[in-house]
């Protein structure tokens, strides 16, 4: 049998400190200190739900440039992802739905040729991210077959149906908003703010999570953990912010 005491003493000997996984970072600054220029950064969120606003602010302050950003959209209003785009440090965005009523920051950069766009059907975006995290080399999908977005891509007929070959999207960094975390990085989410979080967490070399609530190990119901901590590298506790409306035309009051 594996003896935890023996293992612990070996680790103590090697690192001269108590062996204890602790992914909780003291600050956003510390969590994002090593982001490099040219990095591919996945940012969770659909519209404003699940957007890790605190981490995006941290990335802006950190200053990495020449970034490729992967998100479903391309920012709402002037905050969050839109604020990151506004800094001019994003070279390329991979997304499914950049055009929204309040995406003026993206619109301006795109029209002036300052931002490259790779437009991907939403389900292919999700599956390409999932494939990266699951070790899949590429996959055949029916989505997009026969359309502009599949032009130049390999296709195959399988059992009478047509498919397009799509490749994974890997990231250096994933920025995710979750609801609760423990020091192992186990996560639960809040309603539809979950969206891309669980798959992006699997696809990045370094997954950083902001949560309003950190709980003791063993507190999260093991049957209800959505992202197992193995996919998470750093957790930062942030102040709870109410998700604001965004991405649609508000009806006249």
């Amino acid at each position: 049998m594996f003896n935890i005491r023996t293992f612990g003493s070996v680790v103590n000997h090697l690192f001269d400190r108590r062996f204890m996984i602790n992914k909780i970072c003291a600050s956003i600054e510390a969590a994002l200190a090593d982001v490099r220029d040219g990095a591919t950064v996945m940012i969770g969120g659909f519209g404003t739900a699940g957007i890790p606003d605190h981490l995006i602010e941290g990335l802006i302050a950190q200053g990495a440039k020449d970034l490729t950003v992967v998100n479903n959209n391309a920012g709402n209003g002037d905050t969050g992802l839109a604020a990151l785009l506004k800094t001019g440090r994003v070279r390329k965005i991979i997304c499914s739905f950049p055009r929204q009523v309040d995406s003026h920051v993206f619109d301006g950069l795109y029209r002036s040729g300052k931002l490259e766009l790779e437009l991907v059907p939403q389900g292919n975006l999700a599956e390409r991210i999932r494939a990266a995290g699951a070790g899949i080399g590429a996959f055949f999908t029916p989505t997009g077959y026969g359309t502009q977005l599949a032009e130049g891509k390999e296709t195959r007929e399988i059992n009478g149906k047509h498919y397009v070959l799509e490749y994974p999207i890997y990231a250096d960094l994933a920025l995710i908003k979750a609801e609760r975390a423990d020091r192992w990085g186990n996560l639960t989410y809040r309603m539809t703010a979950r969206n891309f979080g669980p798959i992006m967490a699997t696809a990045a070399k370094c997954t950083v999570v902001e949560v309003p609530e950190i709980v003791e190990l063993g507190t999260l119901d093991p049957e209800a953990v959505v992202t197992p901590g193995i996919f998470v590298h750093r957790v930062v506790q942030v102040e709870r912010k109410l998700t604001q409306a965004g991405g649609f035309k508000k009806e006249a009051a």
Partner: protein
Amino acid sequence: MNKWTRDQMAQRVAIDIPDGAYVNLGIGLPTMVANHIPSDREVVLHSENGVIGMGPAPAKGQEDYDLINAGKQPVTLLPGGCFFHHADSFGMMRGGHLDVCVLGAFQVAANGDLANWHTGAPDAIPAVGGAMDLAIGAKKTYVMMELLTKSGESKLVPACTYPITGVACVSRVYTDLAVIDLTRDGAKVIDMVEGLSFDELQKVTAIPLQRA
């Protein structure tokens, strides 16, 4: 010419959604179908951002923007509803688990090709979202649109001139003038607005129609 209103169109679609169906309603006009589903039917609404068992819009002041639909509008969750991530959500579509999907369209071709994501205008910012996944994913893809453009051109066409969203994926089109099934044997009119003759309908429609 008599026309169905948008609400009447939504009502007409709702009649054809069977009890127990899992359904995705696209953004815009199709969203209105939810308001007309007969109260004696249990229909489960899916939204691609990761929710199934979606309820109506919340009361004013009760909005929570962590609980939204694909159009980013606040919604509610019915008892039995649940959340899941994007890859699962699109697996529900692509995997053929949804019974019906109702979408808007710019054009639909006689063979069922759908164009609803891009006008193809050179200065337009392209955005596709889940349209291509929805088009080919559900067991049945219905389109809901006005039959004619504002300038009176038929949106049912021999071949789409706008960039397509999916190949031969639409099985039925609900318009403000008629409901038309697109089959291998041609387009069959299964319902028409009152007072409209088949010949009048054929005259404004750019593809050959058959009486069902």
